[in-house]
């Protein structure tokens, strides 16, 4: 078994009296590509946001190489630099150029020199096919391009794990492909990824494991072959059949 990077133990989250995550348990090993699927409102995004502490978990632990990230005094900035996140709504910095978007984190958080940061940023922008656009501002490029820049921004921090929160849900159908292609390449290169997605084909073909969530619990977790062809739980069957019917 590859090295254990993230260990989520009994994680729960409530917003007021509304409990959105119950007792979530799973592990992320180096090189895993885990897709998290499920209906809207099943807690997928909240789970991802808890892992990056954009939401404070209400209970349980998230261990990163054995250290609990919810402990007081944990180096949160350093952790976030190692766990990249790509958002549904891109969240690029609108005042900065494409290049600067990928440079600012390296400069401020990793304290790299400008030259070093820029060359790394260009390398990753090249990888996602956005190298010609380094001088553009986010408002000047399309949604799919923005999302590819957002991926390059996350990669520029050279993270150990990348979290994707529905990266294609805000995109036109023809732009979905360009983003999924980039993600597919990353998966093949061995990037550890945790992907919340409604793209069943991506979950089936690219991931090494699939987690199906329903009502804030992990309903079923398996390899994509098993989960898509012979789901064990009735809920999984119903979700998949509804999805395939669409």
């Amino acid at each position: 078994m590859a090295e254990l990077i993230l260990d989520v133990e009994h994680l729960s989250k409530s917003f007021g009296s509304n409990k959105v995550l119950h007792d979530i348990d799973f592990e992320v090993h180096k090189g895993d590509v885990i897709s998290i699927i499920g209906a809207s409102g099943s807690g997928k995004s909240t789970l991802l946001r808890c892992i990056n502490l954009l939401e404070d978990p209400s209970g349980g632990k998230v261990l990163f190489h054995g250290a609990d990230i919810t402990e007081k005094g944990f180096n949160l900035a350093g952790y976030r630099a190692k766990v990249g996140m790509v958002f549904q709504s891109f969240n690029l910095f609108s005042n900065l150029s494409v290049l600067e978007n990928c440079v600012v984190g390296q400069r401020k958080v990793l304290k790299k020199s400008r030259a070093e940061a820029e060359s790394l940023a260009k390398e990753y922008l090249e990888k996602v096919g956005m190298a010609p656009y380094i001088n553009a501002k986010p408002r000047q490029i399309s949604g799919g391009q923005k999302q590819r820049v957002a991926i390059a921004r996350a990669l520029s921090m050279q993270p150990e794990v990348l979290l994707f929160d529905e990266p294609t849900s805000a995109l036109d159908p023809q732009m979905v492909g360009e983003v999924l292609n980039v993600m597919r390449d990353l998966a093949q290169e061995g990037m550890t990824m945790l992907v919340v997605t409604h793209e069943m084909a991506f979950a089936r073909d690219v991931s090494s494991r699939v987690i199906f969530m329903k009502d804030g619990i992990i309903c079923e977790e398996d390899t994509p072959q098993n989960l898509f062809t012979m789901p064990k739980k009735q809920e999984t069957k119903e979700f998949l059949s509804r999805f395939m019917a669409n």
Partner: protein
Amino acid sequence: MSKFIDDIVKCWTLYGESYIDGAGRTIVISLVGTIIGCIIGFAVGIVQTIPVSKNDSLAKKVVVKILKIIMRMYVELFRGTPMIVQAVFLFYGVQMIWDVTLGMWPAAFLVVSVNTGAYMAETVRGGINSIDPGQTEGAKAIGMTHVQTMLSVILPQAFRNLIPQIGNNLIINIKDTSVLSIISVTDLFFVHKSVAGALYKYFASATITMLIYLTLTVTASLLLRMLEKKLDGDSSFDLATTDTLAHTSGMLTYHEKKKDK
């Protein structure tokens, strides 16, 4: 009518230089006051938007809470009282407590800055809150701290959105420095009062003064519009490639390269 023109000519020939000096002081006081006020406003606005999470140490929570209460009191005090009273209060207060008599310039800068700062603090808070919280999350997600996020991402955008309001403040200050004559600041209004008193030409002197104030405010307004335009930047950008066939969607080059492999 010809008497009125005669009066104006008389005021101007006798005291033209004083008007210009007064206008100069008005400009300096309102510019410096607005700039320092903006700095105060940005500082207070940043402190008021510091997020506190439950994982922060108790010391940080207490310090931030106390700072926020002090800032809030400052804003309410100076936004909620007239500047003319603040001028008297600060001028004589400093004299009373520290036994220092402030000169004209320090007194004027102090009053205008703290007054502008109180208004700007609220404006900056609004400006910060108006920037899409997604960008703050994006910055958090790559490990940037609150201060780093503010300086590199949020404030430059908030600043752009606040320029009309900064302009408002500058124009208000150009006019409202007139109340400083109560602590003997010899600004444009002070000159007007002196000239009018010396020559008994109230209407003529007021007309000259009105025109000078209007010139100042309209100029300020034009300059700020230009700054706004400049900060918006170019609406076009250069593709960083020598390939003239590079497709504008950026996708074709990507796919073609992949096929070559």
